[in-house]
């Protein structure tokens, strides 16, 4: 039975009980953890790898690894953050394999200042999304985020799409808090700059 004990032990995350049960061999408890987090892990993997099949494999590998390493999870961090860390590492490994290079890492390309300094100061149309159909908009966003280095894409995904805190993002990515903040700023500014060309008020509309 899932324990309902929130009042007395507010600080204890409900996942802790599930993890303990899973450690003791309760399969249903681990299955419950999968149900809770599979969608988030899929989205994160999909964002970082930009590939649907890879993301499906990563969901499987992430939970399998978590299951195998369950004893190592000490509860110092949230289970979800621990899981995300595994998923990010798996995603970067996939990218590396796909490109057959050793260079894909959290640090790749982060030295570049390209696009991190705002150049486009045109305002956007009031509802830029409505200018495009759903499919077309999706295509624009995909193209735009694909241009970001994986290290920036990871930070933006965890922080802005999945809504992890700066501290959780730092922990999941193995980065310091200032490094997360600096990458997040640059990721946001680069995306903004790239999206601007699709979203800004056209010259003839502005007149």
């Amino acid at each position, binding site marked *: 039975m899932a324990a309902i004990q929130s009042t007395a032990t507010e600080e204890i995350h409900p996942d802790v009980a599930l993890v303990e049960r899973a450690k*003791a*061999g309760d*399969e249903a408890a*681990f*299955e419950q953890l*999968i*149900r809770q987090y*599979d*969608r988030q892990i*899929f*989205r994160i993997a*999909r*964002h970082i790898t930009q590939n649907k099949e890879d993301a*499906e494999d990563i*969901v*499987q590998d992430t*939970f*399998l690894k978590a*299951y*195998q390493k*369950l004893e190592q999870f000490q509860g110092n961090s949230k289970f979800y953050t621990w899981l995300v860390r595994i998923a990010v590492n798996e995603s970067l490994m996939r990218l590396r394999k796909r490109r057959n290079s050793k260079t894909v890492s959290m640090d790749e390309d982060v030295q570049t200042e390209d696009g991190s300094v*705002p150049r486009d*100061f*045109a*305002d*956007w149309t009031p509802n*830029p*999304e409505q200018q495009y159909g759903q499919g077309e*908009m*999706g295509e624009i*966003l995909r193209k735009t*985020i694909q241009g970001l280095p994986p290290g920036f894409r990871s930070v*933006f995904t965890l922080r*802005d*799409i999945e809504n992890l805190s*700066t501290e959780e993002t730092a922990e999941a990515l193995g980065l310091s808090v200032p490094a997360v*903040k600096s990458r*997040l*700023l640059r990721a*946001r*500014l680069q*995306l*903004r700059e790239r*999206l*601007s060309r699709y*979203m800004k008020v056209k010259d003839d509309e502005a007149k």
Partner: protein
Amino acid sequence: MTCTEFLAKMTDYFDGTVEASLLEEVHAHLAECSHCEVVVNTTQQTIHIYRDQQLYEYEMPEALRDRLRAAIMEKCRGKRCK
């Protein structure tokens, strides 16, 4: 406050965590610099557009979730017998 100094604080500004001592300067800069005002507005829109669209677009269909979960549990059974 210069534009570069403002940009360095933009993330904290979005999070509402700018130090109290700097907040007035940040607001003053925004009030007088139309470029930074546009950057703030369009960056916020960037975040919202991505969040709205991609949460929806990268959602896993239920059938896929079921299939993956079954595959994971199947693999787990062989890996960590208690």
